[in-house]
């Protein structure tokens, strides 16, 4: 009897392991194809030159610059608002109706589909606020999309600051704001940055929100102000793969661009994951 039950356990645990292996295999297969077919395209020229010959030759410099400038705008907008929201929710607010309402708003904002952010950015930033298709409009659209991630990460970081830190500071006569500024934030800072990097890496890979707000098909010039339109890595992959002048002949450029994009994003993620592991060790010790 017990033997039979243990055999059932063995089989089911094996199935669970298969599920885990499928996930690992999926990641490995995708990365394998992108890397093995993309690395040949990577060269100094590819990274430092604009596309030429109707985007069938040349490099992707404007896309890299575009993606970086969109990300900078995103983080400059979303980080202060996200951290301040998290401070209010975690440090000041209690369990009131208003707080529940704010959280509901944040959760729903997190669930809005990326293309709907794109529609909103187009209707509001591009047209009503008259920013045109620009780094600013695209960055703000991505910023609103990233906001819930940054709020979540910052709250997590603030929560991990031990209570006695705050109590000690308050007991010495500091006000709550002084406590937050001089005691809580410095301790929570690495966690906030880690979470924000994760959020930003998501924004860097998004295509749908910037299709009609920040990114364009082709522009050979590097942006000179935040009101310029740009090329972006994710959108460039989409354009080359679906609407390029010669889709088959530019395959290696598509793989190359995808490789640059996932290297950028995985780099940010690994950095954040390693930093987080170090922090956990420190908090434990």
């Amino acid at each position, binding site marked *: 009897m017990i033997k039979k*039950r243990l055999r059932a356990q063995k089989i089911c645990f094996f199935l669970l392991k298969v599920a885990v292996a499928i996930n690992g295999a999926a990641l490995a297969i995708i990365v394998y194809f992108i890397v093995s077919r993309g690395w040949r395209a990577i060269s100094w020229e590819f990274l430092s030159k604009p596309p030429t010959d109707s985007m069938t030759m040349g490099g992707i410099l404007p896309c890299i610059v575009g993606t970086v400038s969109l990300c900078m705008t995103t983080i400059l907008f979303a980080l202060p608002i996200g951290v301040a929201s998290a401070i209010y929710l975690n440090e000041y607010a209690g369990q009131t109706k208003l707080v529940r309402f704010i959280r509901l708003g944040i959760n729903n904002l997190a669930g809005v589909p990326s293309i709907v952010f794109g529609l909103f950015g187009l209707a509001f930033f591009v047209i009503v606020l008259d920013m045109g298709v620009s780094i600013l409009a695209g960055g703000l659209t991505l910023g609103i999309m990233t906001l819930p991630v940054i709020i979540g990460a910052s709250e997590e970081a603030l929560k991990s600051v031990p209570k006695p830190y705050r109590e000690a500071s308050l007991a010495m006569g500091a006000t709550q704001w002084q406590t937050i500024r001089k005691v809580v934030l410095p301790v929570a800072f690495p966690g906030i940055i880690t979470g924000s990097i994760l959020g930003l890496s998501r924004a860097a890979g998004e295509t749908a929100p910037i299709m009609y707000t920040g990114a364009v098909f082709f522009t050979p010039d590097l942006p000179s102000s935040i009101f310029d339109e740009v090329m972006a890595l*994710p959108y460039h992959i989409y354009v080359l793969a679906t609407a390029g002048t010669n889709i088959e002949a530019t395959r290696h450029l598509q793989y190359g661009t995808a490789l640059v994009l996932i290297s950028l994003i995985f780099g940010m*993620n690994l950095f954040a994951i390693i930093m987080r592991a170090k922090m956990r060790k420190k908090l434990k010790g």
Partner: protein
Amino acid sequence: MKRQNIDKTVRSGFLLVALFSIVALSLIIIFLFLEGIPILEHVSLKEFLFGQYWYPTDDPADFGILPLILGSIYVTVISGMIAIPLGVMTAIYLAQIAPATVSQIVKPIVELLASMPSVVIGFFGMVVVAPFIQQLFNIPVGLNMFNASLMLAFMAVPTICSISEDAVFSVPTALKEASLALGATHFETLVRVIVPASLSGICTAIILGLSRAVGETMVVLMAAGGAAMIPTSIFDPVRPLPASIAAEMAEAPFRSEHYHALFAIGIVLFVFTFLFNLLADHISYKFRQVGEASL
């Protein structure tokens, strides 16, 4: 100014900023409706939602989005059938069975899968998976509902996995120990005690994962084939809601009927995910664990 007054001012300042998310969400709703509702001057709501023909550029144009809605529902359901077992099983393994060293490796893998840009997954579906399934099943096109669902599944797995893992992990150890002490095997404890105890969290995870799949754009834009017709087989090309918006916005003249129709599709999509999120929020709030007395 006294320190206490500064403190009060600062507090109100933070409250104002915290309200920004609500403001942003409201603005999104307002602008979707502002630009989407005018389509109802041209077609009735019923014709729009249940019309079977989507020919927005014809003259006269047809604005029936039923094929698009069905496309979205089908790919979401199929991807759910793949992603739910995969995600939940991985979560259970990570939270209850895996040795620390294994979960230290698997967790980053799930996180990296989560961070994979949708355009790269769509691209992969287009150039690698499409020719593969075309040969495997001997079908005319590889860009179809099955391909898109498969790719979407791997976008939903990380969401389902990480949220369910938290739920499974947070089941009090006392429950587990009690079950083991009564002579149940580890597996029986999992199925009869731990999974039921974390069911609300797992449901929330599934809903959020599927919500992500409904709203995902680039994958269905690149790998679903893009035909706006009601599919009859799993290997038919489809054009889910997000794909229509993304593909057609460039060609829709500003504030034309087509433009308004695309915003109206945005409303439908938003309502879908909004309901999903409200449901998830409701479940996690109503059944949130208070102490150990939640069974």
